[in-house]
């Protein structure tokens, strides 16, 4: 009987596969990404390298010496304190303490301050508190400290915001009204994101992390790109990281453009070109995990998207290795065997600059 190796499904379930089955899944996963995004599939050498990583008998794997990359932690400031069903550990601590623990105990290379709602819009009414905490962090820490939040344009639509929900409008076949609502929401989103970052930068923030861009479709991407452009013009030295929500910009509006490029339907290697134009320093590519496929299929697919992105990018790419993305299973606290394998493949095969 052929030897079987321990892998996981995209939902984290433990599975066992032979080397041949793993290789077949690696090829299928890579072919899927190549077909969707019209990018090259992985080479045989790349496949062999990922196979080697997947069947490594150790529970935890790491990169080869000399290939270490910077790591940061989104919303890590509340990861220690958080105990509301997120991946926090429920140890009472301030955001300053959480950030300092990441810096001094966990080896984070950069950190970000994040609000419990982790979206720009709800940070507006508590901006004074955010500025106060940012200032405290900056006075106590050495590593770059950004402010992080999601553009989350969904909060601008009813019932959470002032603009009529495009989903409701489209159900009533009011397409033009839905598009107008998305555009107006984006204009407000741009204004809010710029305003919040202006204040935080004035109290010493090193920059900002736009996290999960595109979560509310192309309107979300439109707002983020324009906010990045405005911030870059006003603050030439601001450090701006732009991370995506998913592999494809969904066309909820369908016709929004940035610099003459239609945003709907962009894949990671195309997204990064607009992020560069807008003026960000770092791009965070994301590809989605399919929970019904093996970690081999998912990882090869993600590495294919990401490798093409790294190759087409002229700014550093820091891949998002969180739950349910980039070859990591969809679990609140993803298993370390899968996270380390996916991370190693991203660094050594896709060539990412950071995580």
């Amino acid at each position, binding site marked *: 009987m052929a030897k079987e190796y321990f892998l996981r499904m995209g939902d984290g379930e433990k599975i066992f596969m032979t080397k041949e089955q793993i290789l077949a899944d690696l090829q299928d996963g890579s072919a899927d990404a190549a077909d*969707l995004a019209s990018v090259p599939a992985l080479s045989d050498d790349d496949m062999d390298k990922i196979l080697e990583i997947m069947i490594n008998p150790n529970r935890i794997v790491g990169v080869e010496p000399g290939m270490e990359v910077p790591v940061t932690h989104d919303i890590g400031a509340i990861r220690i304190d958080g105990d509301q069903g997120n991946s926090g550990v429920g140890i009472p601590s301030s955001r300053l303490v959480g950030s300092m623990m990441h810096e001094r105990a966990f080896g984070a290379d950069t950190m970000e301050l994040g609000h419990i709602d982790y979206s720009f819009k709800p940070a507006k009414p508590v901006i004074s508190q955010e500025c106060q905490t940012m200032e405290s962090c900056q006075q106590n820490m050495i590593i770059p400290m950004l402010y992080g939040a999601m553009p989350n344009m969904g909060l601008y639509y009813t019932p959470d915001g002032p603009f009529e929900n495009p989903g409701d409008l*489209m*159900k*009533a*076949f009011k*397409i033009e009204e*839905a*598009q107008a609502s998305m555009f107006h929401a984006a204009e407000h989103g741009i204004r809010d994101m710029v305003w919040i970052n202006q204040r935080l930068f004035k109290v010493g923030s090193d920059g900002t992390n736009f996290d999960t861009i595109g979560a509310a479709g192309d309107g979300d991407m439109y707002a983020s790109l324009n906010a990045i452009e405005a911030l870059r013009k006003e603050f030439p030295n601001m450090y701006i990281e732009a991370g995506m929500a998913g592999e*494809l910009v*969904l*066309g*909820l*509006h*369908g*016709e929004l453009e940035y610099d003459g490029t239609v945003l*709907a*339907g962009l894949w990671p290697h195309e997204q990064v070109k607009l992020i560069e134009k807008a003026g960000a320093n770092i791009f965070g590519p994301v590809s989605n995990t399919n929970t019904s496929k093996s970690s081999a299929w998912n990882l090869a697919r993600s590495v294919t998207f990401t490798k093409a992105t790294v190759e087409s990018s002229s700014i550093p790419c820091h891949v998002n290795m969180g739950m349910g993305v980039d070859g990591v299973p969809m679990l609140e606290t993803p298993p370390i065997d899968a996270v380390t394998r996916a991370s190693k493949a991203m660094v050594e095969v896709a060539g990412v600059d950071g995580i």
Partner: protein
Amino acid sequence: MWKGGYNTANEDLYKELSDAVVSCKKDIVLAAVENARGKLDAPDIIENGLSAGMNEVGIMFERGKLFLPHVMMAAGAMQAGVDLLKDEMPDTATSGKGTIVNGTVEGDVHDIGKSIVSTMLQSSGFVVHDIGRDVPIMDFINKVKETNADMVGVSALMTTTLGGQKDVIAALEEEGLRDKVKVMVGGAPATDSWARKIGADCYAENASEAVNKAKELLL
């Protein structure tokens, strides 16, 4: 003038009509329909031109090349093209192919796919009574009784409203109509296996398949 059948000129017209729908622009579709009128029969324009374009839109939607607003705009543009041909459609009242009641279940406001199915069935010679969207169960039953329908088409586009298809079948049984009426189900969450599970006579994935299934069951 020769109409129908395949030749290069027809294929060019089909392509123009199909591309017009893929463009999602109503004015382009209307211009393509105007150009094809007199050269092709109305059902031919709809089936081999406009519907072929809608199928292409569906494929592009699945591939992430087009999105929901595009699909809706394309469907709206196609509907405008179909409306332009209304007077040139076959006289269905005397066609004798069968009478079909078609609607979207209660709680579900999706209309476009169901309307395209109605149009395609009508253009294929069936007498179609489109009772709209968000239709209460008893309205299906009453319309079947009123029109002495041979088939009822029940559409649902959401998993939350899919159960409405089962409810319509149960109501037909309660009213003693089930043996006289064929039931076709469709919509994004419906499947062949779902149709079998709830006791429908068939499932149709798209408008063309709906026509073929209706012909199989009624003719």
